């Protein structure tokens, strides 16, 4: 009986104030979508960092006039270097040229203009700890026969920078929209409490417990939070279908793929966050609004 009563009060409350309910759900949905996107991006960046740090190489390019002896000496030193992950691969000029031809097959003019001899040979070195690049560079740069030491990580850092900025932006929108959503929740609960002030007064008078008086309002707020989170989850799934696997496919295939698992996992997380945060906001509002 009490459960039925509370439930019907929630439904009546939501319907009586339906424009506010819709506004609450929309802002909540936008905020949670952005929060979800931000979390997915965060996870994505973590995964990509792991993936690429496994694979990034430091290239030690040799001078064109480097002798076999110099090359042997470098190979020997690299083999015994504790910072270096074994085995070290050596890329000859021909191999470099062949790779170059494949990479730039869409620009035949460029390939034609490049002589097989003009690409430098290089050692491809993987580091045990990718952060130790500076030490590696210091050790090998300026050695006999070494032209330059290049770190792919430097390039990747820029990519991660862009992704990180996108993530921060999504988070900022999530927070701003989240504040708007919570203010709306607070306002809606106040309006609901006002429109039911007679019932509340009678309930307090005859000794209804606090949780019984407050639960319809809190549930109202939680309902909006949950629906908002469901909409947000659907939004993320739509983004997966049409953006990640659609428009942005060429870009995302270059990066590591975003799996369905990661998207689907967001749904329960967002529903939980939406329900708890809006419920708590509603409850706090009531504490101020309905005094003992």
């Amino acid at each position: 009986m009490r459960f039925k009563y509370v439930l019907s009060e929630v439904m009546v409350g939501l319907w009586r104030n339906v424009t506010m309910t819709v506004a609450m759900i929309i802002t909540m949905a936008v905020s949670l979508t952005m929060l979800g996107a931000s979390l997915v991006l965060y996870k994505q960046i973590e995964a990509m960092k792991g993936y690429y740090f496994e694979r990034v190489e430091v290239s030690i390019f040799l001078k064109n006039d480097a002798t076999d002896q110099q090359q042997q000496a470098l190979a020997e030193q690299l083999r015994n270097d504790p910072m270096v992950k074994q085995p070290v691969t050596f890329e000859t000029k021909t191999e470099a040229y062949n790779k170059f031809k494949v990479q730039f097959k869409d620009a035949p003019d460029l390939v034609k203009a490049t002589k097989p001899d003009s690409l430098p040979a290089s050692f491809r070195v993987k580091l045990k700890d990718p952060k130790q690049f500076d030490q590696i560079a210091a050790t090998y740069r300026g050695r006999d026969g070494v032209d330059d030491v290049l770190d792919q990580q430097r390039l990747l850092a820029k990519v991660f920078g862009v992704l990180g900025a996108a993530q921060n932006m999504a988070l900022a929108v999530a927070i701003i929209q989240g504040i708007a959503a919570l203010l709306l929740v607070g306002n809606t609960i106040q309006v609901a409490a006002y429109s039911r002030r007679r019932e509340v007064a009678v309930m307090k008078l005859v000794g209804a417990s606090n949780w019984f008086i407050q639960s319809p309002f809190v549930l109202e707020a939680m309902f909006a939070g949950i629906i908002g989170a469901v909409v947000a989850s659907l939004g993320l799934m739509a983004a997966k279908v049409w953006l990640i696997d659609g428009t942005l496919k060429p870009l995302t295939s270059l990066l590591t793929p975003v799996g369905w698992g990661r998207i689907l996992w967001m749904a329960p997380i967002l529903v939980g966050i939406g329900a708890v945060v809006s419920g708590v906001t509603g409850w706090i509002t009531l504490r101020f609004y309905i005094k003992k």
Partner: protein
Amino acid sequence: MIRLEHVTKTYPKASRPSLDDVSTSIEKGDFVFFIGPSGSGKSTIIKLLLHEIQPTKGKVVVNEKDVTALRSWRISGFRRQIGCVFQDFRLLPNRTAYENVAFALEVIGKSQGVARRVVPEVLELVGLGGKEHRYPHELSGGEQQRVAVARAFVNRPLILLADEPTGNLDPDTSIEIMRLLDRINRTGTTVVMVTHDSNIVNQMRRRVIEIESGKIVRDQPRGVYG
């Protein structure tokens, strides 16, 4: 049943206390009038007994329990032992007489079965048999106050508080409401009534406590308005 021990209540920003070191006690089954001019502090007593406000100093004891020391989550349970009616009835306009009384039961967790058994009984007791399904706007002022009394009494409280219950009623209707309160008092319920209706006080000849400027100036068994 009710004891006030040196109770002083000063509202914030008020220049003088509404109640000033008031002590009195009311026994179980008593019928007591608190009388006095407007602003004398008599309604403050009702608010204190309901735990709507806390005394600035002193102790309020109801049913051997110190109300001032009541934990906040105990207040709702405490209020179930007290019925209360007001000058403005405080009925829910979108509910019938039956539903108004049943509401008081439902929100403290009683089943609909209990309501179906108890509510018609109490409506019969207050003389509203046959008008259970009328809405408040379809009832006269006296009838509305009867619904309010039914709602206050349906839980069989130990104490019935009445804050100027006849303030909005004509003299004849007032007498009828008083007869009803008298009947409830005869079931053993302690009745505390705040009023400045001299007619009623003079007719009832019950204990009268007169308050002026926050102090008890008269306490008389079988008293008159003065």
